[in-house]
């Protein structure tokens, strides 16, 4: 029995949405490409924003991964088994696998490393699936927490520099003035701050890898 959820998007009842989604899945599994397109259009924006973009750290890479995710969905949709939380958990797992492949192919480190996403893929196949809104909320929190934890481990002055210039996207000169340094000195500060953050993130990944 499906449980009713209050506060649904665009006033559509959650139960009806799930039922409609289930119908779309049945059609998609029967080879209806329009139904697949509708399913992907429903969830793709959230998948891009909350799963692919934070993990891949670049809009171009996230868009490529989104396209690859869709291609794999069309290829493998016959393997999907309907669950009462809908299509999104399966779609998210496919996207995580695509992100994992992309991270493995990449040499430079960004915020997420391949091992981090590998753990998430394992979790997604062992944990109880949750609906899209809860999953999105968890993904957003995880990404923010990762940034905040790393910022909390570096020199507070560096963290402040990154917050102002990178997170708040304030102009270089404005931030330099607020920190009472010249723009050239601010550039050095930012470079040091980013280097410190990179080392901290690497250390965090190592800790997670070792299960500490």
């Amino acid at each position, binding site marked *: 029995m499906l449980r009713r959820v209050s506060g649904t998007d665009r006033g559509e009842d959650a139960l009806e949405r799930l039922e409609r989604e289930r119908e779309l899945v049945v059609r998609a599994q029967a080879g209806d490409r329009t139904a697949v397109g509708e399913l992907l259009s429903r969830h793709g924006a959230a998948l*891009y*924003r909350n799963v692919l973009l934070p993990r891949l750290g670049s809009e171009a890479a996230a868009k490529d991964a989104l396209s690859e995710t*869709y291609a794999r969905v069309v290829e493998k949709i016959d393997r999907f088994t309907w669950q009462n939380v809908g299509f999104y958990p399966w779609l998210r797992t496919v996207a995580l696998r695509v992100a994992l492949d992309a991270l493995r192919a990449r040499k430079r480190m960004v915020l997420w490393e391949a091992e981090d996403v590998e753990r998430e893929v394992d979790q997604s196949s062992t944990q109880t699936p949750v609906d899209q809104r809860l999953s999105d909320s968890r993904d957003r929190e995880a990404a923010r927490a990762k940034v905040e934890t790393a910022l909390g481990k570096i020199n507070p002055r560096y963290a402040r520099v990154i917050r102002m210039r990178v997170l708040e996207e304030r102009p270089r000169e404005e931030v330099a003035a607020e920190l009472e340094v010249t723009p050239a000195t601010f550039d050095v500060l*930012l470079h040091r701050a980013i280097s410190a953050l990179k080392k901290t993130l690497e250390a965090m990944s190592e800790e997670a890898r070792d299960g500490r």
Partner: protein
Amino acid sequence: MDGKKKDPIAVDPREIDPDAPPSEEELAESARLREALDDPKKESTGAELARAVALAHAPREIDDAEHRAIVARGVAEGARRVAKKKRGVVVRVTFGVSVAVAIAAGVMIVFGLRAPAQIELAVTRSTQPLFPDKFPQTGGESDRIDRIAMARSSDLRENRFARWGVR
């Protein structure tokens, strides 16, 4: 600061002085980072990480029109892969069926042609019909043996033709 000194960040990022005088190398790296932050086309690992951090902290929405295009592209690519897989299966099945038919035909040729009930073969029999006239008790043995050999060779040839299905 001496550029050859060990990077203090490598020791502990919290313990170094953020405002310590920069080395020449640091100045050059800082300028590269600033340029790369202003121009995404310029390569810089620092700028790449900065953008990744910003996107993780406040991810941006995807443009609707662009998303529609990505959906269309992804679905088309997926459909192409499915079609390719199906073609691969058809080729494999066709090959398998062809091989099976060829084997069956071979089996039929080998065993089918050997079925004695379906083929009339010359059987062992007396040589008497070869010599309707009386022959002398001595002499002419070689001629008689030649006649028998020719007749039996002819039987053997006919039997082979019969088995091969070309009689």
